[in-house]
Structure formats: C-alpha cells, structure tokens
C-alpha cells in the first residue's frame, strides 16, 4: 500500500479547508494511506519570495523535520510543491535530494505515480487555469513558449469526466497576476492581469474556473466576487472528488 503525507499549504488549511478535505478523500479513494502530519505549517515560500532567505531557512528545516520520514509527500498546489522541489536547494542544499524525489503535486501524483483515470460526471463548462509554477517549474503541461510535444496532466485527468467541457482560451497559460506578495506589492498590475484572465475565461464561456493552485484561484475569486460575476472557482481536487464520489 502507498503511504503519503498530506502537505496542505498554510492558506488552504486556514481559508480553504474543503480543498484539503477533497484532496484527502480523493487520495483515499484511490487506495492511498494518507496521513496529515499536524506539526506542519507552511513551506516558507511567502517569505522566501519576499527576499528573506534567512527567515525561510528555519521554516524549511521544520518542513524537513515533519515530512522526511514519509514515503511520499503530496500537495494540492504546484507552487508550494515547486518551492520544496526546486527552491529548497537554496535553503537546505544538503538534504534536498531526498525531498525532491518524493514530493508531488496532487495531479502529478495521480497522473504519474498512481496512474489513475478518474471516472465520473461533471457536466459543466470549465476554464482551466494553468498555474505558472505547476506549468513551468513542475512541467505539468507543455507550456505555450516551448516547442515540444503538447501534453497537459491536469486536463487529461479532468477530460475523463463525463459531460465536462473546456472553455477555449485565447491565452491558454498566461499568468493570472497573483504571484504571492506581488498581488499586494504590485496591486495595479496584479489586478489588471487577473481581470485579463477572467475576460478570457468569460469569452470561452466558462462557468467554473479551475486549477491546481488555490492561491491563483483566490485572487481570481476575489476579483469575480467584487465585480459580482457569475463565474465560480473550484480547485481541481474539489472537481475530481465531487465527480468521482458516486462512482
């Protein structure tokens, strides 16, 4: 049996607990023995990306202490996963190898490790927001800049669901403008970028915007709700958990 430690990003723990729950249920549904180590807090990305590498170091040490004994570490966020896999090298260089090979973003884990093909029904028109760190740092998809054979792990997991339709986007993988503290440090550009993404999803007829990072969705949702637009956001884990619940 596969054992996995659930790595739930701090803001998901506090503000989007149902996304954590959906992740847990989904993994259990596919036969994974899941444990949530309760001493965890955050991967340290917010302070790291703010330039305080020295402040991020004890947080990385803590992460290692909490997680290093597990077979797999699974996280419903491309950005936090990439922080551990790609950027911990700056903080805990000597211990990065053990983490790198066993830390996975949720969709990547379902697709690459478990090799599942979710079945279920989700009769909605969905706009897929490819979060940048998942896309370009974890390579969950091929990215429009590179000339490689196209692939998209998140989409391929969702596309097995009956009734699901995808909104056609004119810029399929442009950044939404969240970028952690960028969202507040560069409010004007951040909001302009978010509104641009929303307009693209609207043109594509999306009812729901989904993606692998609740942070991007939090930013888009904040704009959608303020502007009272009818589009909702859902994390991929929520869609998959909901659609596969009755199968």
């Amino acid at each position, binding site marked *: 049996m596969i054992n996995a430690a659930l790595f739930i990003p701090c803001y998901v723990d506090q503000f*989007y*607990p149902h996304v954590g*729950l959906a992740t847990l249920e989904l993994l259990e549904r596919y036969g994974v023995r899941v444990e949530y180590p309760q001493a965890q807090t955050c991967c340290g990305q917010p302070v790291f990306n703010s330039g305080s590498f020295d*402040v991020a170091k004890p947080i990385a040490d803590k992460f290692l202490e909490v997680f290093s004994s597990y077979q797999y570490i699974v996280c419903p966020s491309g950005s936090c996963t990439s922080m551990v896999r790609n950027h911990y090298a700056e903080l805990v260089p000597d211990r990065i190898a053990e983490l790198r090979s066993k830390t996975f973003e949720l969709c990547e884990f379902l697709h690459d490790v478990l090799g599942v093909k979710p079945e279920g029904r989700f009769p909605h028109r969905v706009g897929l927001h490819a979060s940048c760190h998942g896309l*370009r740092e974890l390579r969950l998809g091929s990215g429009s800049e*590179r000339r490689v054979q196209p692939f998209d792990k998140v989409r391929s997991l969702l596309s097995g669901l009956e009734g699901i339709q995808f909104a056609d986007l004119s810029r399929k993988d442009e*950044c939404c403008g969240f*970028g952690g503290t960028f969202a507040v*440090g560069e409010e004007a550009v951040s*909001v302009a970028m978010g509104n641009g993404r929303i307009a693209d999803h609207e043109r594509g007829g999306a009812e729901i915007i989904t993606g692998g990072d609740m942070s991007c969705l939090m930013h888009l949702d904040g704009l959608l709700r303020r502007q009272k637009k009818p589009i909702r956001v859902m994390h991929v884990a929520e869609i998959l958990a909901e659609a596969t619940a009755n199968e």
Partner: protein
Amino acid sequence: MNEGTTEHPENAAAFVANDARLKWHDQSLWFVREKRDRASSVIPEWESLRALGADIKAHTLSRLADYLEEFEKKATALGAHVHFARDAEEHNRIVHGLLRERNVTRVVKSKSMLTEQCGLNHHLEAHGIEVIDTDLGERIVQLRHEPPSHIVMPAIHLKKEEIGDLFHDTMGSASGISDPKVLTEVARGQLRGNLLAAQAGITGVNFAIAETGGFVVCTNEGNADLGTAIPPLHIASMGIEKVIPRAKDLGVFLRLLARSATGQPVTAYSSHFHGPRPGGELHIVIVDHGRSEILGREHYRRTLQCIRCGACMNTCPVYRRSGGHSYGVTVPGPLGAVLAPHIDPKKHRSLPFASTLCGSCSDVCPVQIDLHQQLLLWRGDLGRAELIPLRKRAASQLAGWVLARTWAYEFLGRIARWILPKLPKALLRANDWGRQRELPPAPKESFREMYRRRRGQ
C-alpha cells in the same frame, strides 16, 4: 517616489490607470509573442537550437578574454581599429575623441542599446555634435526627448496618432496623419537628408566573430547600411559579450534572433562588416561597463548570453501591462530587472519584485537564460544586503517566526478567522488586497481541525 530609487509599482500604476493604452499595449506585444510562436514552430529542432545557442554562448563566456583578443587581432588585420572601454564614460570619451579629431559635427546612428545605456547622444550633443537616430522607432523617441521603452521596438508605447502629432510638430507634416505608411514616408524623407549630410555613422554590433574579425548588424530598415555606406567614418560600439567564436556559429544566432524578436525568419538586413570599406575608416569600441563584474558572479553569468531579442519583454505579463518606462532603465522587462541591480542595487531594488515569477521569460528565451530564477536570487541578495524596505522585512520576520512554530501558527490562524468576518467593510477595503478584491472566506474550522475531528483525535 523615494529619492534615488525606481518605484516600479507606482510607475506601473500610472500606466495601468490608462485602461485603453494598457489593453492596446498588452495586445500589441502579445501579437508579437504569437508571431514568435508561429515562427519558432516551423523549426522542428527549435528547442535543441536554443540549447545549442546557450551552449555556444556559455562556452564563449568561459574564455571570453581569449575570444576578445582573437577578435581584436583579426579585426585589426582586416584594417579596423579596436578600442577597449572600461565603462560608459570611457566609451563616450573614445567616440567623441574620434569625432573631434576628424572635425565631425553631424552623426547618424543606427539603433544601439549600448550607446543608449552609455548616454552617448547626450554626451555628444553636449559637445556640439548633432546625432540623428536612423531607426524609425528610435528617431520617434529621440524627437520626444524620451528613452526607448523596448529594446527592439523603441516606440511601442506610442499610438500612430501620437506619432502623427509629433511629426506635425517637429517636421511640419500635415496634421491628423495616422497612416503608418505615410508617416514612414515623412520620416524617410527627412532622414535621407540627414544620411546624406552625415560625416560619421555609429552602429551597434549584434555578433562579433572571433575567427574572422568581422561583425554583423541586424536591422529591418537597412539603416545600418546607409549610415555606414555614405560617411567615411564608421564607429561600431559593442559590449564584451557580443563575441562568438566561429563564423559558422552565426547561423544559429541569426535563426534564433529574429524569430524570437519579431517573429520574422530573419531580419530584413543582416549586414556584415569585415574591415573598413575602401577609403573609409572603421573603429570598433568594445565596452565592459559592468559586464565583467556580472561574469564574475556565478549565478548571474548567464545573463551575458543574452542576444537582445526582447522576447522576454514581449512575453512578460508585467512588462506588457506596465510599459517599458516603468522600469526606469534602458533595458526594461525581466532582462532589465536582472541586469539593473548589478549597476545600482539600491536604486533598482524594486525591479526584481516586478514579476510574478511565472517563468514565461525563462521558457521563451532563445539562449535559455533562467531569468525568473535570477529574479528570485536577486530578491535574496537584496534581502541579504538589507535593501528591502523595512516594512516588508519586518513583515517577513514576523511571518517567519510564526511559521516556524506550529502553536503560534494555529493560534493566530484561529484569531484571524474569528476576527476577519467581524471587521468593518471599510477597513477590509482599505488595503492593497481588499481595494479591488474580496478577501478569501473565513471558515470556522481549519483543515487540521476538520482532520482531527474526522480521525477522532
């Protein structure tokens, strides 16, 4: 604006405030990005071509002094004069000296970001020498007395109507003209006179070939050819990183450059200069201006691989929405945000933060510079140098203290979720998140509390 620093967020906010310009600027550059996608997709080996370009450049940088010496030797053998300049000031002094000795008072220049970076026009004008930029976009910003906003499309921030007005004011063309064709004709008519009267031509250098001692200048308007074919003196300014080892390497970069820059298969003119033309004089000024210092910084060395295509700017969602001038440096966008702090980290400390770290710049770069990674590393270096504003540093310290302690994190999380719904709306909307966005919901239970309940703990 704080004294002595570039505040990208404030400059960007001013650009964003003009919604029509914002949309149009974003779309114009995205159009170029898409053209680049199409042009690169016709080359099946595009990704390996990028890798090859990166390898050649990395190799060159690993023995840059040798290749520069070889270039100097070969170029001299071809009859060119080679000068080395430590910095902008020395570069300007050399160029001015050459012009003064020959009593030159009228110079035409083909687009060169290096001379822009060195402030050459200003320096020469202060000495009574007239400098006319011959690239159309460059000429437009010159007439407006402002710096270029993009390294390949210097006037991309202007609408054709604004250019029509500018030409009306400065060249006396009819008012209300906005047809690009007509405007180009107006500029061309005047430029022709400048070109014919010029006593010297200054160009940049795209690629200098160590093996042959020749160099190549890429333009779309043929202005480098005209500007060097008419006057008897040609001065070419190049950064030390422009050298490539062999003539056969050139093809790699010519294929990468134009496709990445504008989506063209190749620039309309790739002009080769191997020694002075008969009866003419050729001087090559090789400029360091901070580059060898970058060469010595291991993590940042790769920026010197840059071939100045501007693709990182076109793809950057922040650049597209904040305009080149918001960066306050000659080279804007992700590349500029990585280069500028080398010159003055305090002044340019906001630039590495003018990015969401989306990584598009790294993936689009034709020579595989890990731009977004370097932006991140700069943030760390600025942090270590205590050049991050105090408020931000204090917030990080506090967050760090909390996040390293589970109990503090849990306790404060609970308080935040309890207090958020009780706060007055006005307060929630008086900060940089809440002004234009709703806050996330504040659920009663955190995930860990739900988990404990589920597991009966």
